[in-house]
């Protein structure tokens, strides 16, 4: 047993409202540079739909991920290493910029420089590749909220197999949002595809990164990733990908997409797994078994044998403690309500999803059912707007039973908690779906209350390593590290680096830093100047301010 720790994310699709805040904050943080205009480390797709890049899920076309060779061994779907090197001058499986979209901006200067005239000047679209005028015809967000779905959505690779069952007429149309980041797989095919060895998986937390200094732009990682979450920077000629916000994770903070998620649907936590079992699990003969096989790779942090072995193999004690509190392990393995995205790619993805349930409850309510009765809800799960088969094509390689069970458990939590809230005896028994009352309460705490501390259990990287960690990664070029910039050793506001990110408990209690106003809310002394609207109650004078 070789125990490794993996930072892992779960997204509760029931709560995603498709606001794209995650995409925006991610873009502002990581890809707001020339060359990465079309790059979305995080994007939100409307399902059903083609996704980004278009039809990326069709591996018969793109040849991403792994497959089994004739002898049943794991092999890259794109072909052998020799074949890769032979086709290094032209990668047949690489998407072109049209499959993403030609990046563009607008000729804003024209608004100011246009000569005087009778018409108000308007801006034209300018390609970021050529500077020429262009006409956008596709993009990361082109099919938001089913835009163009009548023409296109039936080409969704998840629908093609069940096209006869899915109708997209107004009465029966369905949709939900699927936020996507890099899966930081246990068996990453992008890393395996990189000829230069520039991509790697970090031993400590499993984050998959590209070493910008060693990347030679051979672009096989882009085609090797079945989720198409490695992108080619067209300015630098190097691959870039979601970093899982490693500087924040190392500081014990959630990723920026999680931190800013309006729906609070993201969960971060550690999952311990047995690295020795990954390959055999990924080589399961039947793709439908891959979900169960991956669960079999995970280790229970509460198991004393696991705990002893983990400590012996150098997993820090606080990381083990964090693994026990991990919301992602609870949702994935303990309660089994979260499912992997496309396990059939055999990469063992580590961003999992709780399938959307809401329309079920809505349909039953509309039909005059009482959703307090579990059997009504269960019956409706098979008749819900989002076909279970569609979810199964996304999350379990076509097996409907795990999806159905996850949805039933979610429905059960609602029934049980509704009864609790109303002070009545629940008419249903959680054991029907393999839950105890405690499980239901725990799921309620995680999914409905969803406090910050419960959603994000991220143990900081070990402080004794912090300086070296930064040193290893600053070659990838922090934009703040220009000479004299804020990254040049200055701690920024607060002057104490990581701790300055968050309001510390002792600071919150210090009236010179923060104070409670008449409205009972906590106010921070953010500026040292008086303004007419802010009374002195911001905090008594203490640090030489004018409050």
């Amino acid at each position, binding site marked *: 047993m070789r125990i490794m720790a993996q930072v892992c994310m779960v997204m509760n699709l029931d709560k995603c409202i498709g606001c794209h805040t995650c995409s925006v904050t991610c873009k502002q943080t990581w890809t707001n540079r020339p060359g990465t205009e079309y790059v979305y480390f995080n994007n939100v797709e409307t399902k059903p739909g083609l996704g980004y890049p278009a039809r990326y899920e069709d591996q018969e076309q793109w040849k991403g991920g792994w497959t089994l060779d004739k002898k049943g061994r794991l092999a890259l779907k794109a072909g052998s290493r020799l074949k890769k090197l032979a086709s290094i001058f032209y990668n047949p499986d690489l998407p*072109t910029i049209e499959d993403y979209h030609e990046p563009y901006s607008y000729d804003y200067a024209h608004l100011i420089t246009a000569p005087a005239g009778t018409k108000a000047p308007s801006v034209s679209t300018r390609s970021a590749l050529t500077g020429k005028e262009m006409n956008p015809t596709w993009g990361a967000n082109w099919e938001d909220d089913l835009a163009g779905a009548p023409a296109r959505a039936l080409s969704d690779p998840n629908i093609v197999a069940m096209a006869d069952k899915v109708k997209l007429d107004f009465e029966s149309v369905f949709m939900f949002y699927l936020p996507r980041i890099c899966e930081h797989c246990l068996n990453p095919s992008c890393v*395996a595809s990189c000829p230069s060895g520039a991509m790697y998986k970090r031993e400590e937390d499993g984050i998959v990164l590209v070493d910008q200094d060693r990347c030679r*732009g051979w*672009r096989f990682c882009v085609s090797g990733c079945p989720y198409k979450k490695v992108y080619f920077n067209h300015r630098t000629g190097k691959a870039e990908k979601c970093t899982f916000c490693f500087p924040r994770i190392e500081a014990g903070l959630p990723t920026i997409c999680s931190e800013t998620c309006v729906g609070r649907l993201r969960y971060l936590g550690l999952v311990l797994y047995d690295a020795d079992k990954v390959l055999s699990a990924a080589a399961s003969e039947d793709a439908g078994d891959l979900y169960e096989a991956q669960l079999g790779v995970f280790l229970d942090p509460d198991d004393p044998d696991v705990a002893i072995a983990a400590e012996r193999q150098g997993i820090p004690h606080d990381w083990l403690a964090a693994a026990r509190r991990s919301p992602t392990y609870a949702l994935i393995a303990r309660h089994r309500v979260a499912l992997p995205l496309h396990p059939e790619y055999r990469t063992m993805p580590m961003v999992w999803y709780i399938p959307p349930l809401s329309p079920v409850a809505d349909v039953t309510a509309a039909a005059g059912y009482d959703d307090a009765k579990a059997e009504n809800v269960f019956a409706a799960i098979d008749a819900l707007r989002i076909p279970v088969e569609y979810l199964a094509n996304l999350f379990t390689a076509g097996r409907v039973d795990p999806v159905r069970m996850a949805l039933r458990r979610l429905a059960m939590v609602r029934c049980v908690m509704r009864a609790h809230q109303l002070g009545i005896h629940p008419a249903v028994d959680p054991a029907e779906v393999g839950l105890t009352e405690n499980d239901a309460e725990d799921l309620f705490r995680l999914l409905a209350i969803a406090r910050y501390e419960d959603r994000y259990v991220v143990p900081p990287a070990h402080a004794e390593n912090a300086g070296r960690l930064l040193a*290893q990664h600053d070659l990838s070029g922090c934009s703040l590290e220009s000479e004299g910039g804020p990254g*040049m050793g200055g701690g920024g506001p607060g002057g104490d680096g990581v701790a300055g990110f968050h309001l510390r408990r002792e600071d919150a209690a210090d009236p010179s830093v923060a104070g409670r106003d008449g409205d009972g809310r906590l106010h921070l002394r953010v500026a040292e100047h008086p303004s007419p609207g802010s009374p002195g109650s911001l905090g008594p004078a203490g640090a030489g301010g004018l409050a």
Partner: protein
Amino acid sequence: MRGVTGFQLWWWVILPYLALATFVIGHIWRYRYDQFGWTSRSTELQEKKLLKWGSPVFHYGTFAAIAGHVIGILVPERWTSEIGIPEAAYRWFSAGAGTLAAVLIIIGVAILAARRLFVARVRATTSPVDWLALILLAIVIVMGIAETIGVGLLGGGYDYRQSVALWFRGLFAGNPDVRAIAHAPFLYQLHATAAWAVIAVWPFSRLVHAWSAPVGYLWRPFVVYRSRKATRPNEPGTSGRRWRRIGVHY
């Protein structure tokens, strides 16, 4: 050296050595200073249909041409005649195989040049030093093709192994035969001159990707793990990108 003018000495000895020095020092400098800029600079993302034919044909043709140069220039004529290959036989092989390589390169270069010139997305990615390198490379290729097909195949042939090769090998042995190259046909002189220019520009252009051919991929484990190695922080103010003394290892 008797019978050698100052210009010939400058052109066929000093300049080549300067180019060679630039090549070596430039590569060391670039490798240490600019790992981030060291890339194949692929434009397949921007354009794929032309690249599909142009790039493999050009690269494989180039490999054939490089092999031909090794046989024709680096291997002395004495060696081939000692193992019983007459000059005529060598010349026919050289013209035949060389023509095959030349045809591949012509097709590849035509497609790639058209792509770089007329596909706006590709043209936009080309830096000035890359333009320089590509133009020099084009001169080398066109001259090489003219020699192989025009002289070797269709013309009367020219035994460059008695002239150009002696001078070239002499450069590495420390006694280049200037008279041999100085009296070679102009075509061969231009070819050699442009080649030295390419060598000098090489470390500063995208051509450096040739040294990163990822052969190690064939043996390496599929999934690479890296742990947080203890590395020293950069010198303050350098952002890790400044020239440092060679041999000081952080």
